[in-house]
Protein backbone atom coordinates (compact mmCIF):
# COMPACT_ATOMS: atom_id res chain seq x y z
CA UNK A 1 0.00 0.00 0.00
CA UNK A 2 1.14 3.58 -0.57
CA UNK A 3 2.75 5.64 2.14
CA UNK A 4 0.12 6.89 4.59
CA UNK A 5 -0.80 10.55 4.29
CA UNK A 6 -1.20 10.81 8.01
CA UNK A 7 0.16 8.42 10.58
CA UNK A 8 0.25 8.44 14.37
CA UNK A 9 2.34 6.18 16.57
CA UNK A 10 1.56 5.56 20.23
CA UNK A 11 -0.17 8.89 20.91
CA UNK A 12 -0.95 9.44 24.57
CA UNK A 13 -2.52 12.40 26.29
CA UNK A 14 -4.48 12.76 29.47
CA UNK A 15 -6.00 15.77 31.16
CA UNK A 16 -5.73 15.05 34.87
CA UNK A 17 -7.48 11.72 35.30
CA UNK A 18 -9.26 11.84 31.96
CA UNK A 19 -7.54 9.85 29.24
CA UNK A 20 -8.15 11.67 25.94
CA UNK A 21 -5.72 9.68 23.81
CA UNK A 22 -4.61 6.19 24.79
CA UNK A 23 -1.84 4.67 22.64
CA UNK A 24 -3.35 5.67 19.32
CA UNK A 25 -1.74 4.05 16.27
CA UNK A 26 -3.61 5.25 13.25
CA UNK A 27 -3.00 5.83 9.58
CA UNK A 28 -4.91 7.45 6.79
CA UNK A 29 -4.16 6.94 3.10
CA UNK A 30 -4.58 9.31 0.16
CA UNK A 31 -8.07 9.26 -1.31
CA UNK A 32 -9.82 7.95 1.78
CA UNK A 33 -12.92 9.62 3.19
CA UNK A 34 -12.84 8.88 6.86
CA UNK A 35 -15.72 9.40 9.26
CA UNK A 36 -14.89 9.52 12.94
CA UNK A 37 -17.70 8.66 15.30
CA UNK A 38 -17.90 8.50 19.06
CA UNK A 39 -19.74 9.96 22.00
CA UNK A 40 -18.94 13.35 23.48
CA UNK A 41 -15.70 13.20 25.44
CA UNK A 42 -14.43 10.12 23.59
CA UNK A 43 -11.39 12.06 22.36
CA UNK A 44 -12.32 12.79 18.74
CA UNK A 45 -11.58 16.49 18.89
CA UNK A 46 -8.47 15.95 21.02
CA UNK A 47 -7.14 13.66 18.31
CA UNK A 48 -7.76 16.39 15.73
CA UNK A 49 -6.13 18.95 18.00
CA UNK A 50 -3.02 16.78 18.33
CA UNK A 51 -2.79 16.13 14.60
CA UNK A 52 -3.16 19.84 13.79
CA UNK A 53 -0.59 20.90 16.38
CA UNK A 54 -3.03 22.73 18.62
CA UNK A 55 -2.31 20.37 21.53
CA UNK A 56 0.98 18.52 22.05
CA UNK A 57 0.78 14.83 23.01
CA UNK A 58 2.54 13.59 26.15
CA UNK A 59 3.94 10.63 24.19
CA UNK A 60 3.93 9.43 20.63
CA UNK A 61 4.43 10.96 17.20
CA UNK A 62 2.43 12.29 14.26
CA UNK A 63 3.64 12.09 10.66
CA UNK A 64 2.20 13.95 7.70
CA UNK A 65 3.44 12.59 4.38
CA UNK A 66 6.39 11.06 6.23
CA UNK A 67 7.34 14.31 7.99
CA UNK A 68 7.33 14.31 11.78
CA UNK A 69 4.97 17.13 12.74
CA UNK A 70 4.51 16.27 16.42
CA UNK A 71 6.19 19.39 17.78
CA UNK A 72 5.29 21.78 14.98
CA UNK A 73 3.06 24.82 15.37
CA UNK A 74 -0.45 24.76 13.79
CA UNK A 75 0.55 27.22 11.08
CA UNK A 76 3.60 25.15 10.10
CA UNK A 77 1.40 22.06 9.82
CA UNK A 78 -1.10 24.00 7.71
CA UNK A 79 1.74 24.96 5.38
CA UNK A 80 2.63 21.28 5.00
CA UNK A 81 -0.83 20.59 3.61
CA UNK A 82 -3.13 19.79 6.50
CA UNK A 83 -6.24 21.97 6.39
CA UNK A 84 -8.91 22.18 9.03
CA UNK A 85 -12.46 23.41 9.25
CA UNK A 86 -14.17 24.00 12.55
CA UNK A 87 -17.27 22.93 14.41
CA UNK A 88 -17.93 26.64 14.95
CA UNK A 89 -16.87 28.19 11.63
CA UNK A 90 -13.85 30.43 12.08
CA UNK A 91 -14.37 33.32 9.68
CA UNK A 92 -13.34 36.92 9.29
CA UNK A 93 -16.80 38.15 10.12
CA UNK A 94 -16.18 41.78 9.21
CA UNK A 95 -14.93 40.86 5.72
CA UNK A 96 -16.96 39.89 2.68
CA UNK A 97 -17.10 36.27 1.54
CA UNK A 98 -14.78 37.07 -1.36
CA UNK A 99 -12.32 38.89 0.89
CA UNK A 100 -12.18 35.90 3.24
CA UNK A 101 -11.07 33.74 0.31
CA UNK A 102 -8.68 36.41 -0.91
CA UNK A 103 -6.94 36.54 2.47
CA UNK A 104 -6.66 32.74 2.38
CA UNK A 105 -5.19 32.87 -1.13
CA UNK A 106 -2.68 35.52 -0.08
CA UNK A 107 -1.80 33.44 2.96
CA UNK A 108 -1.01 30.44 0.76
CA UNK A 109 1.42 32.47 -1.33
CA UNK A 110 3.32 33.16 1.89
CA UNK A 111 3.79 36.79 0.92
CA UNK A 112 1.44 39.48 2.16
CA UNK A 113 1.60 42.59 0.00
CA UNK A 114 1.86 46.00 1.66
CA UNK A 115 0.70 48.26 -1.14
CA UNK A 116 -0.90 46.08 -3.81
CA UNK A 117 -4.64 45.91 -3.11
CA UNK A 118 -5.59 42.48 -1.82
CA UNK A 119 -7.93 41.75 -4.73
CA UNK A 120 -5.12 42.42 -7.24
CA UNK A 121 -2.61 40.37 -5.31
CA UNK A 122 -4.52 37.12 -5.80
CA UNK A 123 -5.81 35.13 -8.76
CA UNK A 124 -9.37 36.34 -9.35
CA UNK A 125 -10.36 33.27 -11.38
CA UNK A 126 -9.25 30.93 -8.66
CA UNK A 127 -11.44 32.77 -6.16
CA UNK A 128 -14.38 32.64 -8.58
CA UNK A 129 -13.84 28.92 -9.16
CA UNK A 130 -13.81 28.15 -5.47
CA UNK A 131 -16.87 30.32 -4.85
CA UNK A 132 -18.77 28.44 -7.57
CA UNK A 133 -17.51 25.11 -6.29
CA UNK A 134 -19.08 25.64 -2.87
CA UNK A 135 -22.11 27.50 -4.23
CA UNK A 136 -21.32 30.87 -2.68
CA UNK A 137 -20.87 32.80 -5.89
CA UNK A 138 -24.00 34.88 -5.41
CA UNK A 139 -22.96 35.68 -1.84
CA UNK A 140 -19.47 36.88 -2.82
CA UNK A 141 -20.02 40.43 -1.65
CA UNK A 142 -22.02 39.58 1.46
CA UNK A 143 -20.34 40.32 4.76
CA UNK A 144 -19.53 36.99 6.40
CA UNK A 145 -21.41 37.87 9.59
CA UNK A 146 -24.68 37.98 7.60
CA UNK A 147 -24.40 34.39 6.35
CA UNK A 148 -26.65 31.67 7.78
CA UNK A 149 -24.91 28.79 9.56
CA UNK A 150 -24.87 26.40 6.59
CA UNK A 151 -23.16 28.93 4.35
CA UNK A 152 -20.75 29.82 7.12
CA UNK A 153 -19.70 26.17 7.19
CA UNK A 154 -19.21 26.24 3.44
CA UNK A 155 -17.13 29.40 3.64
CA UNK A 156 -15.04 27.83 6.39
CA UNK A 157 -14.33 24.86 4.12
CA UNK A 158 -13.74 27.10 1.10
CA UNK A 159 -11.13 29.16 2.94
CA UNK A 160 -9.24 26.00 3.77
CA UNK A 161 -9.59 24.76 0.17
CA UNK A 162 -7.82 27.93 -1.01
CA UNK A 163 -4.72 26.60 0.74
CA UNK A 164 -4.77 23.56 -1.58
CA UNK A 165 -4.47 21.08 1.29
CA UNK A 166 -3.65 17.39 0.86
CA UNK A 167 -5.85 16.48 3.80
CA UNK A 168 -8.89 18.28 5.17
CA UNK A 169 -10.07 17.59 8.69
CA UNK A 170 -13.61 18.72 9.40
CA UNK A 171 -14.91 18.81 12.93
CA UNK A 172 -18.67 18.19 12.80
CA UNK A 173 -19.31 19.85 9.43
CA UNK A 174 -23.09 19.52 9.79
CA UNK A 175 -23.59 20.53 13.42
CA UNK A 176 -25.81 23.55 13.89
CA UNK A 177 -27.35 23.11 10.44
CA UNK A 178 -31.06 22.34 10.01
CA UNK A 179 -31.51 18.60 9.39
CA UNK A 180 -33.14 19.19 6.01
CA UNK A 181 -30.07 21.04 4.82
CA UNK A 182 -27.44 18.62 6.12
CA UNK A 183 -27.35 16.36 3.06
CA UNK A 184 -27.22 19.28 0.62
CA UNK A 185 -24.37 20.78 2.62
CA UNK A 186 -22.44 17.50 2.68
CA UNK A 187 -23.11 16.92 -1.04
CA UNK A 188 -21.52 20.27 -1.80
CA UNK A 189 -18.58 19.80 0.54
CA UNK A 190 -17.76 16.25 -0.54
CA UNK A 191 -18.07 17.11 -4.21
CA UNK A 192 -15.73 20.04 -3.75
CA UNK A 193 -13.21 17.86 -1.92
CA UNK A 194 -13.38 15.20 -4.62
CA UNK A 195 -12.94 17.79 -7.33
CA UNK A 196 -9.86 19.17 -5.64
CA UNK A 197 -8.59 15.66 -4.84
CA UNK A 198 -8.37 16.29 -1.13
CA UNK A 199 -8.35 13.37 1.28
CA UNK A 200 -10.92 14.01 3.96
CA UNK A 201 -11.67 13.15 7.54
CA UNK A 202 -14.82 14.30 9.25
CA UNK A 203 -16.31 13.92 12.68
CA UNK A 204 -20.01 13.14 12.48
CA UNK A 205 -22.85 12.04 14.72
CA UNK A 206 -25.45 11.44 12.02
CA UNK A 207 -25.19 7.80 10.92
CA UNK A 208 -27.00 8.41 7.62
CA UNK A 209 -24.33 10.90 6.66
CA UNK A 210 -21.56 8.52 7.71
CA UNK A 211 -23.08 5.75 5.60
CA UNK A 212 -23.50 7.94 2.59
CA UNK A 213 -20.21 9.77 2.41
CA UNK A 214 -17.51 7.78 4.18
CA UNK A 215 -15.31 5.06 2.68
CA UNK A 216 -14.00 4.23 6.12
CA UNK A 217 -15.23 4.66 9.68
CA UNK A 218 -13.26 4.86 12.91
CA UNK A 219 -15.12 4.69 16.21
CA UNK A 220 -13.65 6.29 19.29
CA UNK A 221 -14.31 5.06 22.83
CA UNK A 222 -12.48 6.59 25.81
CA UNK A 223 -9.46 7.83 23.88
CA UNK A 224 -9.02 4.64 21.85
CA UNK A 225 -9.89 3.54 18.33
CA UNK A 226 -12.40 0.84 19.25
CA UNK A 227 -13.26 -0.15 15.68
CA UNK A 228 -11.87 0.79 12.29
CA UNK A 229 -13.06 -0.44 8.90
CA UNK A 230 -15.68 -0.01 6.22
CA UNK A 231 -18.94 1.66 7.29
CA UNK A 232 -20.78 -1.65 7.08
CA UNK A 233 -18.28 -3.44 9.31
CA UNK A 234 -18.02 -0.79 11.98
CA UNK A 235 -21.68 0.13 12.16
CA UNK A 236 -22.71 -3.52 12.55
CA UNK A 237 -20.16 -4.16 15.29
CA UNK A 238 -22.19 -4.97 18.46
CA UNK A 239 -19.82 -3.09 20.79
CA UNK A 240 -20.05 0.02 18.63
CA UNK A 241 -23.82 -0.31 18.43
CA UNK A 242 -24.06 -0.46 22.21
CA UNK A 243 -21.36 2.02 23.25
CA UNK A 244 -21.38 4.56 20.44
CA UNK A 245 -24.67 4.41 18.62
CA UNK A 246 -26.73 3.65 21.71
CA UNK A 247 -29.05 1.26 19.93
Amino acid at each position, binding site marked *: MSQPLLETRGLCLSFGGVVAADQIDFSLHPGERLAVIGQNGAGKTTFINICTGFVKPQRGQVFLDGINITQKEPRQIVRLGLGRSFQLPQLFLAHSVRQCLEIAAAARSGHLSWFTPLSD*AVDRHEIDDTLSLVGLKDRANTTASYLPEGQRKLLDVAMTLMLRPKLMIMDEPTSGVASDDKMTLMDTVMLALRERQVTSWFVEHDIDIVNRYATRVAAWIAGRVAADGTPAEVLSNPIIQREVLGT
Partner: protein
Amino acid sequence: MIRGMAWLGFALCLGMGLLFPWSKTPLIMGLCYGMASLGVCILVRGGQVSFGHALYAAIAAYAVAFLARAHPETDGLVLILVGMAASGLVGAVVGLFVVRYRGIFFGMLNLALSMVVFAMLGKFYNLTGGTDGLRINRPTMLGFVTERDVFETILLCLSVVFAASLVYAVQRYFKSASGEAMAGIKSNETRLEYLGLSAKYILWQAYVVSALMVGLSGAVFGLVQGLVTPDIGSWFRSGEYVFITILGGSGHALGVFLGAAVFEAVKLFASAYMTGVWQMLLGLTLILVILLAPEGIVGMLRQKISNSNEGQS
Protein backbone atom coordinates in the same frame (compact mmCIF):
# COMPACT_ATOMS: atom_id res chain seq x y z
CA MET B 1 -14.52 61.62 -2.84
CA ILE B 2 -12.59 61.22 0.41
CA ARG B 3 -9.36 61.38 -1.59
CA GLY B 4 -10.48 64.73 -3.01
CA MET B 5 -11.23 65.94 0.51
CA ALA B 6 -7.76 64.90 1.62
CA TRP B 7 -6.08 66.92 -1.13
CA LEU B 8 -8.30 69.88 -0.38
CA GLY B 9 -7.69 69.64 3.35
CA PHE B 10 -3.92 69.49 3.07
CA ALA B 11 -3.89 72.30 0.51
CA LEU B 12 -6.01 74.37 2.90
CA CYS B 13 -3.51 73.70 5.70
CA LEU B 14 -0.71 74.98 3.53
CA GLY B 15 -2.67 77.98 2.29
CA MET B 16 -3.80 78.98 5.75
CA GLY B 17 -0.30 78.68 7.15
CA LEU B 18 1.11 80.90 4.41
CA LEU B 19 -1.68 83.47 4.67
CA PHE B 20 -1.83 83.65 8.46
CA PRO B 21 1.66 83.16 9.88
CA TRP B 22 0.30 82.84 13.45
CA SER B 23 -1.47 79.65 12.43
CA LYS B 24 1.70 77.80 11.36
CA THR B 25 2.57 76.43 14.79
CA PRO B 26 -0.93 75.14 15.62
CA LEU B 27 -1.18 73.67 12.11
CA ILE B 28 2.13 71.83 12.42
CA MET B 29 1.09 70.58 15.85
CA GLY B 30 -2.26 69.46 14.48
CA LEU B 31 -0.54 67.56 11.69
CA CYS B 32 1.80 66.01 14.27
CA TYR B 33 -1.19 64.89 16.30
CA GLY B 34 -2.69 63.44 13.14
CA MET B 35 0.46 61.52 12.18
CA ALA B 36 0.87 60.11 15.68
CA SER B 37 -2.80 59.13 15.82
CA LEU B 38 -2.44 57.44 12.45
CA GLY B 39 0.17 55.22 14.11
CA VAL B 40 -2.31 54.38 16.85
CA CYS B 41 -5.04 53.90 14.24
CA ILE B 42 -3.07 51.17 12.44
CA LEU B 43 -3.13 49.11 15.62
CA VAL B 44 -6.80 49.89 16.21
CA ARG B 45 -7.50 48.22 12.84
CA GLY B 46 -6.20 45.05 14.44
CA GLY B 47 -8.43 45.61 17.45
CA GLN B 48 -5.53 46.69 19.68
CA VAL B 49 -5.58 50.03 21.47
CA SER B 50 -2.28 51.31 22.84
CA PHE B 51 -2.52 53.71 25.78
CA GLY B 52 1.21 54.38 25.73
CA HIS B 53 2.20 55.38 22.24
CA ALA B 54 3.41 58.83 23.30
CA LEU B 55 6.48 56.85 24.38
CA TYR B 56 7.58 56.78 20.74
CA ALA B 57 7.07 60.51 20.33
CA ALA B 58 9.28 61.00 23.39
CA ILE B 59 11.99 58.63 22.13
CA ALA B 60 12.16 60.47 18.80
CA ALA B 61 12.01 63.95 20.31
CA TYR B 62 14.78 63.20 22.82
CA ALA B 63 16.88 61.51 20.15
CA VAL B 64 16.53 64.71 18.11
CA ALA B 65 17.46 66.83 21.14
CA PHE B 66 20.51 64.72 22.04
CA LEU B 67 21.80 64.70 18.48
CA ALA B 68 21.12 68.40 17.89
CA ARG B 69 22.99 69.31 21.07
CA ALA B 70 25.92 66.99 20.39
CA HIS B 71 26.19 67.97 16.72
CA PRO B 72 24.54 71.37 16.24
CA GLU B 73 25.45 71.35 12.56
CA THR B 74 23.11 68.40 11.84
CA ASP B 75 20.37 69.26 9.35
CA GLY B 76 16.74 69.29 10.49
CA LEU B 77 15.70 66.60 8.04
CA VAL B 78 18.48 64.30 9.25
CA LEU B 79 17.36 64.94 12.83
CA ILE B 80 13.82 63.90 11.90
CA LEU B 81 15.03 60.72 10.22
CA VAL B 82 17.26 59.83 13.18
CA GLY B 83 14.39 60.46 15.57
CA MET B 84 12.16 58.15 13.54
CA ALA B 85 14.84 55.49 13.38
CA ALA B 86 15.27 55.59 17.16
CA SER B 87 11.53 55.14 17.68
CA GLY B 88 11.39 52.36 15.11
CA LEU B 89 14.24 50.55 16.83
CA VAL B 90 12.68 50.80 20.28
CA GLY B 91 9.31 49.81 18.74
CA ALA B 92 10.89 46.73 17.16
CA VAL B 93 12.28 45.57 20.52
CA VAL B 94 9.27 46.48 22.67
CA GLY B 95 7.02 45.03 19.97
CA LEU B 96 8.56 41.57 20.38
CA PHE B 97 7.19 41.58 23.89
CA VAL B 98 3.84 43.39 23.66
CA VAL B 99 2.49 41.58 20.58
CA ARG B 100 2.07 38.51 22.76
CA TYR B 101 -0.82 40.26 24.51
CA ARG B 102 -4.24 41.40 23.36
CA GLY B 103 -6.93 43.82 24.36
CA ILE B 104 -6.68 45.42 27.77
CA PHE B 105 -3.32 43.73 28.48
CA PHE B 106 -1.83 45.13 25.30
CA GLY B 107 -3.13 48.59 26.15
CA MET B 108 -1.95 48.58 29.75
CA LEU B 109 1.49 47.12 28.97
CA ASN B 110 2.09 49.95 26.53
CA LEU B 111 0.89 52.41 29.14
CA ALA B 112 3.18 50.90 31.80
CA LEU B 113 6.23 51.06 29.54
CA SER B 114 5.52 54.65 28.60
CA MET B 115 5.14 55.57 32.29
CA VAL B 116 8.53 54.04 33.11
CA VAL B 117 10.21 56.07 30.37
CA PHE B 118 8.23 59.18 31.36
CA ALA B 119 9.46 58.86 34.95
CA MET B 120 13.04 58.29 33.81
CA LEU B 121 12.94 61.37 31.59
CA GLY B 122 11.84 63.43 34.58
CA LYS B 123 14.36 61.97 37.04
CA PHE B 124 17.64 61.74 35.13
CA TYR B 125 18.19 65.45 35.39
CA ASN B 126 21.82 65.46 34.24
CA LEU B 127 21.00 63.70 31.03
CA THR B 128 17.51 64.85 30.16
CA GLY B 129 17.22 68.17 31.96
CA GLY B 130 14.44 66.72 34.11
CA THR B 131 11.03 68.33 33.86
CA ASP B 132 12.62 71.50 32.40
CA GLY B 133 13.49 69.43 29.34
CA LEU B 134 16.10 70.12 26.70
CA ARG B 135 16.28 73.08 24.35
CA ILE B 136 16.86 72.38 20.68
CA ASN B 137 18.55 75.20 18.83
CA ARG B 138 17.10 75.81 15.42
CA PRO B 139 19.01 73.58 12.99
CA THR B 140 19.62 74.24 9.33
CA MET B 141 16.70 73.02 7.25
CA LEU B 142 17.44 71.27 3.95
CA GLY B 143 20.82 73.01 4.08
CA PHE B 144 19.42 76.53 4.64
CA VAL B 145 20.19 78.65 7.68
CA THR B 146 16.82 80.24 8.37
CA GLU B 147 14.90 82.70 10.47
CA ARG B 148 12.19 81.35 12.76
CA ASP B 149 9.48 82.29 10.31
CA VAL B 150 11.02 80.58 7.28
CA PHE B 151 11.97 77.61 9.44
CA GLU B 152 8.33 77.19 10.41
CA THR B 153 7.21 77.53 6.81
CA ILE B 154 9.59 74.77 5.75
CA LEU B 155 8.45 72.59 8.66
CA LEU B 156 4.83 73.19 7.71
CA CYS B 157 5.48 72.24 4.09
CA LEU B 158 7.37 69.14 5.21
CA SER B 159 4.58 68.17 7.62
CA VAL B 160 1.95 68.53 4.92
CA VAL B 161 4.02 66.38 2.56
CA PHE B 162 4.63 63.78 5.27
CA ALA B 163 0.98 63.72 6.30
CA ALA B 164 -0.35 63.47 2.74
CA SER B 165 2.11 60.70 1.85
CA LEU B 166 1.21 58.84 5.02
CA VAL B 167 -2.52 59.05 4.32
CA TYR B 168 -1.92 57.68 0.83
CA ALA B 169 0.46 54.92 1.95
CA VAL B 170 -1.56 53.86 4.98
CA GLN B 171 -4.80 53.75 3.01
CA ARG B 172 -3.04 51.51 0.47
CA TYR B 173 -1.83 49.38 3.36
CA PHE B 174 -5.35 49.08 4.83
CA LYS B 175 -6.55 47.63 1.51
CA SER B 176 -3.51 45.37 0.97
CA ALA B 177 -3.12 41.75 2.01
CA SER B 178 -1.12 42.77 5.10
CA GLY B 179 -3.72 45.34 6.10
CA GLU B 180 -6.64 42.95 5.66
CA ALA B 181 -4.79 40.26 7.59
CA MET B 182 -4.25 42.85 10.33
CA ALA B 183 -8.02 43.42 10.38
CA GLY B 184 -8.28 39.63 10.65
CA ILE B 185 -6.51 39.82 14.04
CA LYS B 186 -9.48 41.83 15.24
CA SER B 187 -12.09 39.40 13.98
CA ASN B 188 -10.46 35.97 14.16
CA GLU B 189 -6.92 35.19 15.13
CA THR B 190 -7.49 31.43 15.21
CA ARG B 191 -8.37 31.47 11.54
CA LEU B 192 -5.24 33.44 10.69
CA GLU B 193 -3.11 30.78 12.35
CA TYR B 194 -4.98 28.05 10.48
CA LEU B 195 -4.31 29.84 7.22
CA GLY B 196 -0.63 29.43 8.03
CA LEU B 197 -0.09 33.04 9.09
CA SER B 198 1.51 34.31 12.27
CA ALA B 199 -0.78 36.86 13.92
CA LYS B 200 2.08 37.94 16.18
CA TYR B 201 4.35 38.67 13.24
CA ILE B 202 1.64 40.63 11.43
CA LEU B 203 0.97 42.66 14.57
CA TRP B 204 4.69 43.18 15.19
CA GLN B 205 5.18 44.61 11.71
CA ALA B 206 2.28 46.99 12.23
CA TYR B 207 3.62 47.91 15.65
CA VAL B 208 7.00 48.91 14.24
CA VAL B 209 5.36 50.96 11.51
CA SER B 210 3.15 52.67 14.08
CA ALA B 211 6.21 53.44 16.25
CA LEU B 212 7.91 54.99 13.21
CA MET B 213 4.90 57.22 12.55
CA VAL B 214 4.56 58.40 16.13
CA GLY B 215 8.34 58.92 16.06
CA LEU B 216 8.06 61.13 12.98
CA SER B 217 5.41 63.19 14.72
CA GLY B 218 7.49 63.48 17.89
CA ALA B 219 10.59 64.59 16.00
CA VAL B 220 8.71 67.33 14.13
CA PHE B 221 6.94 68.33 17.33
CA GLY B 222 10.27 68.73 19.14
CA LEU B 223 11.69 70.84 16.34
CA VAL B 224 8.72 73.19 16.10
CA GLN B 225 8.65 73.70 19.86
CA GLY B 226 12.42 74.09 20.08
CA LEU B 227 12.12 72.28 23.38
CA VAL B 228 11.37 68.77 24.55
CA THR B 229 10.01 68.02 27.98
CA PRO B 230 8.85 64.69 29.45
CA ASP B 231 5.28 65.86 28.78
CA ILE B 232 5.63 64.69 25.19
CA GLY B 233 5.68 61.11 26.50
CA SER B 234 3.01 61.44 29.17
CA TRP B 235 0.01 59.14 29.44
CA PHE B 236 -2.15 62.17 28.85
CA ARG B 237 -0.62 62.61 25.41
CA SER B 238 -1.09 58.91 24.64
CA GLY B 239 -4.73 59.31 25.61
CA GLU B 240 -5.07 62.23 23.23
CA TYR B 241 -3.89 60.04 20.35
CA VAL B 242 -6.53 57.45 21.18
CA PHE B 243 -9.10 60.24 21.58
CA ILE B 244 -8.29 61.60 18.11
CA THR B 245 -8.43 58.12 16.57
CA ILE B 246 -11.90 57.50 17.96
CA LEU B 247 -13.03 61.01 17.08
CA GLY B 248 -11.80 60.75 13.50
CA GLY B 249 -12.58 57.08 12.95
CA SER B 250 -10.33 54.27 11.77
CA GLY B 251 -12.27 53.41 8.61
CA HIS B 252 -10.03 55.55 6.41
CA ALA B 253 -6.51 56.87 6.91
CA LEU B 254 -7.77 60.44 6.56
CA GLY B 255 -9.99 60.01 9.62
CA VAL B 256 -7.33 60.79 12.21
CA PHE B 257 -6.47 64.06 10.48
CA LEU B 258 -10.11 65.11 10.58
CA GLY B 259 -10.08 64.08 14.24
CA ALA B 260 -6.91 66.07 14.85
CA ALA B 261 -8.39 69.12 13.09
CA VAL B 262 -11.51 69.05 15.27
CA PHE B 263 -9.35 68.39 18.33
CA GLU B 264 -7.09 71.38 17.63
CA ALA B 265 -10.03 73.61 16.70
CA VAL B 266 -11.90 72.78 19.90
CA LYS B 267 -8.73 73.38 21.91
CA LEU B 268 -8.06 76.72 20.19
CA PHE B 269 -11.67 77.84 20.59
CA ALA B 270 -11.82 76.75 24.20
CA SER B 271 -8.53 78.35 25.15
CA ALA B 272 -9.81 81.65 23.76
CA TYR B 273 -13.37 81.64 25.05
CA MET B 274 -13.77 78.90 27.63
CA THR B 275 -10.48 78.81 29.51
CA GLY B 276 -10.57 76.41 32.40
CA VAL B 277 -13.22 74.10 31.00
CA TRP B 278 -11.59 73.06 27.73
CA GLN B 279 -11.33 69.42 28.79
CA MET B 280 -15.06 69.43 29.38
CA LEU B 281 -15.63 70.71 25.88
CA LEU B 282 -13.41 67.97 24.45
CA GLY B 283 -15.22 65.40 26.54
CA LEU B 284 -18.58 66.57 25.28
CA THR B 285 -17.33 66.44 21.69
CA LEU B 286 -16.24 62.83 22.17
CA ILE B 287 -19.54 61.86 23.77
CA LEU B 288 -21.41 63.40 20.85
CA VAL B 289 -19.26 61.55 18.33
CA ILE B 290 -19.65 58.20 20.09
CA LEU B 291 -23.42 58.65 20.30
CA LEU B 292 -24.04 60.07 16.84
CA ALA B 293 -21.20 58.61 14.78
CA PRO B 294 -19.66 55.54 16.40
CA GLU B 295 -17.47 55.05 13.34
CA GLY B 296 -16.00 58.51 13.86
CA ILE B 297 -16.11 61.53 11.61
CA VAL B 298 -14.84 59.63 8.59
CA GLY B 299 -17.42 56.89 9.13
CA MET B 300 -20.17 59.50 9.20
CA LEU B 301 -18.84 61.08 5.98
CA ARG B 302 -18.70 57.73 4.20
CA GLN B 303 -22.26 57.00 5.25
CA LYS B 304 -23.36 60.37 3.86
CA ILE B 305 -21.47 59.77 0.60
CA SER B 306 -22.91 56.30 0.06
CA ASN B 307 -26.40 57.58 0.89
CA SER B 308 -26.15 60.38 -1.64
CA ASN B 309 -24.78 57.96 -4.24
CA GLU B 310 -27.76 55.69 -3.70
CA GLY B 311 -30.06 58.70 -3.95
CA GLN B 312 -28.65 59.55 -7.37
CA SER B 313 -28.79 56.09 -8.87
